[in-house]
């Protein structure tokens, strides 16, 4: 068995890995790599876990992480948004109720000047029921995201 150099820091791990993977052939089967690691005195499983922890941490801190993480988060957010659709079935029959709910949520979300909001929502009065309901759904979603954030 070749003499193992103890790995104590992440930097040492990276150096050891770089050296190891530079010397190893790309087409070498995984079993042969494991065997070689054992020869060096490393437990492949333990080393794998160590690399996983390290790579997760590096990815979490990476500026490039959004490319991977955003898609999962978007899918989860869409699921959450869709859940609010089922919370408004009674509103279909009552336009003024929907409008009131929207105004209440706007006040709750509060930081925006509630007088300003309708002014920019140009077709507020003439908006279709469907538009108002989806608007209400989005506001409920944002209000809930805000609450979760504050929690």
């Amino acid at each position: 068995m070749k003499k193992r150099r103890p790995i104590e820091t992440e930097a040492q791990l990276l150096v050891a890995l770089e050296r190891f993977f530079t010397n190893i052939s790309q087409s070498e089967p995984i079993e042969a790599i494991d065997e070689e690691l054992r020869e060096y005195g490393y437990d492949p499983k333990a080393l794998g876990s160590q690399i996983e922890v390290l790579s997760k941490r590096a990815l979490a801190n990476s500026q490039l992480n959004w490319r991977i993480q955003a898609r999962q988060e978007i899918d989860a957010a869409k699921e959450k948004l869709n859940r609010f659709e089922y919370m408004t079935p009674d509103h279909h029959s009552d336009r003024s109720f929907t409008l009131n709910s929207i105004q209440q949520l706007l006040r709750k979300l509060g930081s925006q000047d509630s007088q300003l909001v309708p002014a920019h929502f140009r077709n507020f009065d003439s908006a279709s029921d469907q538009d108002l309901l989806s608007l209400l759904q989005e506001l409920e979603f944002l209000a809930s995201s805000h609450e979760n954030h504050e929690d």
Partner: protein
Amino acid sequence: MSFAAQSADHLIDRLGITKRSDLLLLEEIAWTRGILVKEGLLEGSEARLVMAKGRGVITISSSIQDLRRKRFSIAHELGHFELHRAQRGLSLCLSEDIREGVGRTAGQDLEQEANEFASALLLPYRFFAPLCKKQEPSLDYVAHLANDFSTSLTATALRYLNFCEEPVAIVYSHDNRIQWFQGSKDFETIREDLEFFIDVRARLDRSSLAATMFQGRNLPSKMSRVLASSWFTSGRYDQNATILEHSYFMPTYNATLTLLWIDEDIENEDEELTED
């Protein structure tokens, strides 16, 4: 660079975008800013942005079929979020607000800014500008760039003018009439110097290729030499001078998009002599 373009550039920096394929991840880019993008039924508008407490939802009308138009609309609403969230809680953008072309009505400065942001985000200076100098001007090349960046031909052509180093103009005509035009910096210098205009709202000159396309004649779309007077009002240019025209007919819109290139000196030298 305008404030809107700077903001788009800053966003690209912040996300560490170093290759243009990342610009295709527009939903993900919006998400990093706290914006969820979704499609939905919208009546009377193309896009809607609802903002609260630093987060937002962009809804894009599912009636928009064109992927490139959708991308521009998302980038436009993201522009409102980045630039105007202090002023607006909720924004509803009609199709005329989200202009990939030129022109605006009074009081639409915020919409114009959002359009500038969208253009600078989808066609960033760092990736797009060097390509504009790589080949001679032509609509074929602009279409190639539009394809690479997944942006509309019109939006790409207008952005192209910012970085093209030749005297080039883009003209949009609808139903045989000129609707708007925009020139590159060099084109505008020549235009001012030689005191001519492109007559917006005028019928297309019969000798232009664009006019021929409206007559239903199936012409090959290629750069062709035409009289400068086919496009320009009278001015201090030689009446026999020629320029290059490249027009695309867009049957869906009953419109043409034209690239004009003053590729040689068109100044009336006799007039110069007379003045001396």
